[in-house]
């Protein structure tokens, strides 16, 4: 089940989030010494001491001056050149580049690549940090709103067995409307302008709900071989993408929101389930828990860009800039993909049966629900720490599923 918040809630929460999170000094408590093979490490001399360096984003940072992983200061000699140490062993076997920072960015980031080239030419730059880190804001506790008003958002929930969508107010927390839709509704999404909700029903239908009246204004009945499941709406609100959870007709329906008709279909992996657009809407990422693949589709041409073999992938979340994808994978993982190169760069271990994942505003936290063991996991991306909460199961035995942030 996927829950979506309305635009009003997003705008309301934005205030706090923006004021608290936007202008925060960079901080990283990552244990970078564990990433011994990262090519951005190099050794130089600081105060005539061999020093292991790396980049934190685009900024050179001291990692260690004492032994750390493969780095042992005894292997290096700063006696001859205060800036360029010599390696006491064979240069070809040196575990780190000597005083030639390759820098961050990687090949997909041409400017980063160029930045590294420029910096390796020895341009000294400490002053710019004053500007680069502006504006500053001190860390402070968030003071949350306490009084309900009309700007609080609504939550939409699909009820599979009752063939309805429930609209729930969040302050006060109460049901506002129950809207009947075709059998087995699975996903609901709201257009960016907040006027329309779209609902997928497994049994061959896609519903359009006018949110001003809470009425279904149009039902798009599909061929019986199409089983609408996953759903995403483009950032401009002009297109909806719906997966058909089917192996014989494994495809994505591209729906024109104005005419509410199917524009075209895109062949994809068997049993496509989740559909998530990158923040700029340029790519659609399709998950297939049964196909063990994530398919990536270019929405300009509706052609396949690439695919990643990921075991029982269920859901995808992106950071706000679309440079990282976080994919829930069974039995118990969140796989991080660099969306520039489409390479897996990291894996987090979470609870059993992760189904849904969402990113907080500011890209600080990921929230993951795990149906199999009833836990919800928080991944702190700044501190690189994971915590979990055992959710209380209600009398009907429900488990956590679906996530929404107040933005």
């Amino acid at each position, binding site marked *: 089940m996927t829950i979506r918040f309305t635009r009003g809630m997003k705008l309301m929460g934005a205030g706090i989030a923006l004021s608290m999170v936007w202008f925060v000094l960079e901080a990283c408590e990552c244990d970078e010494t564990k990433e011994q093979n990262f090519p951005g490490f190099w050794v130089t001399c600081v105060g005539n001491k061999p020093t292991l360096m790396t980049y934190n984003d685009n900024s050179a940072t001291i990692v260690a001056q004492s032994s750390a992983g493969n780095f042992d200061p005894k292997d290096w000699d700063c006696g001859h050149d205060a800036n360029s140490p010599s390696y006491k062993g064979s240069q070809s076997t040196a575990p780190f580049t000597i005083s030639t920072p390759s820098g961050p960015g990687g090949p997909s980031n041409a400017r*980063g690549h160029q930045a590294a080239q420029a910096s390796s030419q020895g341009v000294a730059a400490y002053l710019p940090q004053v500007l680069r880190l502006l504006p500053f804001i001190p860390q402070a506790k968030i003071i949350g709103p306490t009084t309900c008003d009309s700007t609080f958002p609504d939550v939409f929930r699909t009820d599979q067995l009752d063939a309805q969508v429930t609209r729930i107010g969040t302050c006060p927390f109460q049901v506002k409307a129950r809207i009947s839709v075709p059998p087995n509704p699975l996903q609901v999404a709201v257009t960016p302008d907040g006027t329309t909700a779209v609902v997928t029903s497994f049994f061959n239908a896609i519903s359009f709900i006018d949110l001003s009246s809470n009425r279904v204004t149009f039902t798009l009945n599909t061929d019986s071989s199409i089983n609408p499941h996953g759903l995403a709406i483009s950032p401009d609100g002009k297109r909806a993408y719906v997966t058909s959870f089917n192996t014989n007709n494994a495809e994505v329906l591209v729906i024109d929101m104005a005419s509410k008709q199917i524009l075209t279909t895109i062949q994809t992996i068997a049993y496509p389930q989740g559909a998530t657009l990158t923040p700029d809407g340029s790519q659609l990422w399709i998950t297939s828990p049964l196909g063990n693949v994530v398919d990536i589709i270019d929405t300009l041409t509706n052609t396949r860009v690439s695919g990643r073999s990921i075991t029982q992938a269920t859901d995808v979340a992106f950071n706000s800039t679309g440079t990282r994808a976080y994919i829930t994978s069974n039995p118990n993982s969140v796989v991080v993909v660099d969306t520039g190169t489409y390479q897996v760069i990291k894996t987090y271990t979470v609870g059993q049966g992760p189904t849904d994942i969402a990113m907080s505003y500011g890209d600080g936290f990921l929230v993951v629900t795990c149906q199999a063991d009833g836990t919800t996991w928080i991944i702190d991306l700044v501190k690189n720490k994971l915590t979990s909460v055992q959710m209380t199961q209600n009398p009907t035995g429900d488990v956590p599923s679906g996530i929404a942030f107040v933005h």
Partner: protein
Amino acid sequence: MTSAAKATGLFLFLSCSVIAFAQSPLIYNRAVYNAASYMPAGLPNGAIAQGSIFSFFGSNIGPTPAATANSFPLGTTLGGVSVNIVQGQKVVSAIPLYVSPTQINAIMPSNAPLGLASVQVVVGNLRSNLSPVRIAGSAFGIFSALGNGLGEGILQNFISADNQPINAPTVTAQPGQAITLWGTGLGPVSFADTVAPTPGNLPVKTEVFVGGVSAPILYNGRAPCCAGTDQIVFTVPNNAPSGCWVPVYVRTGGTTVSNFVTMAIGPQGQTCTTDVLPQVTSSFVNGTRLAEALFTRTTTLQDIGVLKPVEVASDYYVAFAFQPNVLQFPFNPALAFPPGGSCTAYTLYGDMINGFGLPGMPPTTMPLDFGPPFQLTGPRGSKTMSQTYLLAQAGYFGGSIGNGVLSSSLFLDPGSYTLQGFGGADIGKFSTNFNIPQPPTWTNRDQLVVVNRSQPLQISWTGGDSGQRVAIIGIGEDIPTNSSANFVCMAPPGATSITIPPDLLSNMPPSRLNALQSKDIIYMLTLSGTSVQPLAASGLDQGLTGFYSIIGKTVFFQ
């Protein structure tokens, strides 16, 4: 090595080659750029012009070793690699100039379709994914010496037909001198893109601005030597400002603004000087030992995308000492301020505020050792600058957030200060006094909400102290496309207002309706005149203190 071993090695090599060749080519996401400007596609002028050279990146997109086109006529296949430009049913072939496993440079054909299209690589019989590209009639990029689209441009000072050195801080140009600017993206040509270009002015309206002053154009067209490459020959205006990093940009079609590069203007053949902190410039260019102890108070009004407007203030310090390397093209975006009365601009794929600095900013020269942390004594007592950040003493003194969120712990109040250094291996002891004045007032700050990118933007202020220098810095970020742009305008000495020309705003990404998807802010940065005092210590060639008042305001760029 025996023959058998050599044969085995050869077999293994061939096997690996076949395997490598058989891997599907993949164009990376958001990896198509103008080859000169590297302007992100997410910015208004981040398109690729018909007839221009573009670069893109990926994996398995070309052969090993790389292949380069060295003679005319050029072909549409190079090293077994071809590049398609696809728009619907229309497919045209780009002209590859350089192909390697991870990067391709090619000419966007003059008959490429305008608008949104896709790039596709064909390696042997393997086709890559389609990667989006925006094609325009004209979108000019100026080549830069650092190869990244900023800093010193590839501009040749014309002295004689056989003496045209590249302009640099030590190879300055004079007003009235002819300059040849190299770039790509003026627009399509009527002849084939595959042959040696026919010299001649292209029909697109072309303007060059030097320090904000329009320069007379002598030629604007293809370079006869090089397909896809443009030359613009102009004369340095007589009223262009002098300096080491005088901004230069090209405007085509009356509205499309290129990347900004710099050129040095001053006495011919001598090293340039700047009108802002010339001692820092001298050290940076000449590689002498420099120390700075800088203090900032940043006060930002955040009133966009928030429930209630809130003012956030913070006091910070940064102190460092280093000896820069002497370079032919020294450039650092934060040191290379434009001359008073002129503006420059930068673009970046990434987060310019919180995530990424501009190329040239990261330190590579190791700091000089000035011993234990400095101590600063002022109206609110003494503080030790004990935090280290990025190889310098840099940290937070205190702050405040309005609306009762965080009570004030600000430290850098106006008054007299004494800074003490205790000496280290490289830098000796010192004690210096300086003043932090009442900051200037940005008089029209609170009225500034929507910035129309097509109109001049005036910023006004009052107060401050004698000798202060004011810079206006605007930053715009389009979060969904991960694209940033900024402008920096330096007010003349003694000014109380400055007007930002629309050209400086044109590459700022328009703000999104969802305020959470943009970060747009304008700062007024003031370097106090009375705060700049010598920091005299053994082991230093130059040293100074300085206080920056930074006043910010969130805005919409429209």
